[in-house]
């Protein structure tokens, strides 16, 4: 079943045409990777799916419902959430409260508590720092927090924008493991990564973006094997 469907999306920043007729589908249970150079429009796509920035034309359907007519918070309530690029933790709020805010609209208090403990097991560093103001965390710790916070909402679909940025290799591995695990547990994933190699390895399918346009889409292993892709994005 199609979980997310983007059709002919056009997005502008002033007169910069940042996304051109972008179309993409993510099926339920899939991991889909987006790769592309700096400035290709990956983050723009993620933000417009969440209706954080307006699109000029096109459609975004999440479980058949039009996202472009909904406010961001409604989309989140429908079950899709985003870990934005650049962390965006609430700097003057404690780590724990940041995590609780991730579960803002959930009413199942006891489950939230369990999830919180699960997160702390996953990222012991965050537990150590749970009273600290998030803004004083190191860059990598903030990145962990941002991802963990999104997990707190138990989304049906999770959009991740460069979740490995600034993380130690060991944590990067852990994040990728986590992505695979929650995917197995039933969360559909749309993943943007500079670290294309690793991203494609865990993905089912992949899309390649260039200057706002989709230039290729294929099964992940096919993309991994593609020479052009290898040269441009994976490093020789």
């Amino acid at each position, binding site marked *: 079943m199609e979980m997310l469907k983007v059709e002919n999306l056009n997005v502008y920043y002033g007169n910069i045409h940042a996304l051109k007729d972008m179309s993409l589908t993510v099926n339920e249970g899939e991991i889909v990777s987006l790769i592309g150079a*700096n400035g290709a429009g990956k983050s723009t796509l993620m933000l417009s799916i969440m209706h954080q920035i307006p699109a000029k034309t096109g459609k975004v359907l999440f479980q058949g419902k039009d996202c472009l007519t909904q406010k961001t918070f409604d989309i989140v309530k429908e079950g899709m959430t985003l870990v934005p690029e650049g962390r965006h933790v609430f700097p003057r709020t404690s780590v724990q409260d940041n995590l609780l805010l991730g579960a803002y609209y959930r009413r199942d208090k006891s489950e939230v508590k369990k999830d919180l403990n699960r997160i702390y097991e996953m990222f012991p560093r965050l537990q150590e720092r749970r009273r600290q103001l998030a803004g004083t965390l190191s*860059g990598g710790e903030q990145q962990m927090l941002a991802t963990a916070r999104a997990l707190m909402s138990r989304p049906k679909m999770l959009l991740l924008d460069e979740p490995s*940025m600034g993380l*130690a290799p060991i*944590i990067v*591995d852990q994040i990728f493991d986590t992505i695979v695990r929650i995917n197995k547990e039933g969360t559909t994933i749309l993943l943007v990564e500079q*670290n294309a190699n690793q991203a494609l390895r865990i993905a089912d399918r992949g899309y390649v973006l260039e200057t706002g346009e989709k230039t290729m889409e294929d099964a992940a292993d096919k993309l991994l094997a593609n020479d052009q892709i290898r040269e441009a994005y994976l490093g020789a």
Partner: protein
Amino acid sequence: MSEVLLSTQNLSKSFGGIMANKDINFHINRGEIVAIIGPNGSGKTTFYNLLTGITRCSGGTITFEGKNITGKKPQEITKLGISRTFQNIRLFGTLSVAQNIEIARHCRTSSTMWDALWHTKKYGTEKEENAEAVERCMEYVGIADKKDWKATNLPYGMQRKLEIARALATDPKLILLDEPAAGMNPKEKEELMDIIRKLSSDGYSVILIEHAMRVVMNIADRISVFNYGEKIADGLPTEIRENPVVIQAYLGKGASADGNA
């Protein structure tokens, strides 16, 4: 040429109860590229903040070119010849690329309001020198064609390069780079590595914080490893790669780290 350029003795910093840096003994020789790696929150950025005087240390000393520079103000340290980039990019956003770099010339110039008002000779020569330096630094990192762009409008990778150019414009002896490769794709990382190698061959000393192992392993002469605010290892890339403690705390299973992060 193994003269020590900068060293720290038992450098420490605590935030409340957290020891962000603990008795760090570190040194870098002239012309060297030393990488600092370590888990998130191990105190690498804090270490930079101490070296550049942005944060005051709670203990220990910093020696630069044989002089004790502990407790000096950031602007004084820059003038002495240590310059840095920031993990969270801190450009002068609304200013142009060229202006960003010209500001960095501040510590190497001295004309006053009086000179500026009457356009004295000193003002003129300094303006010319600055223009040259700006040109040179932009070319160094390859952003000369973006001269008049506003800094915030640059793509991410370029912003990182501009930070390096700006650091370079202060005529430093030592450059501190904080995760310069973050958010760059493999191709851009290659370009970055070229720039850092060039810096080294031009006589600059470089300390590099980086999680991208391919970059670190390829260009560092030496690697220091931090964990929980302490320096837990120091050695050649080949040694560090095999070090079980480092693997356990930092590198993880994918230690071979081909094309990693």
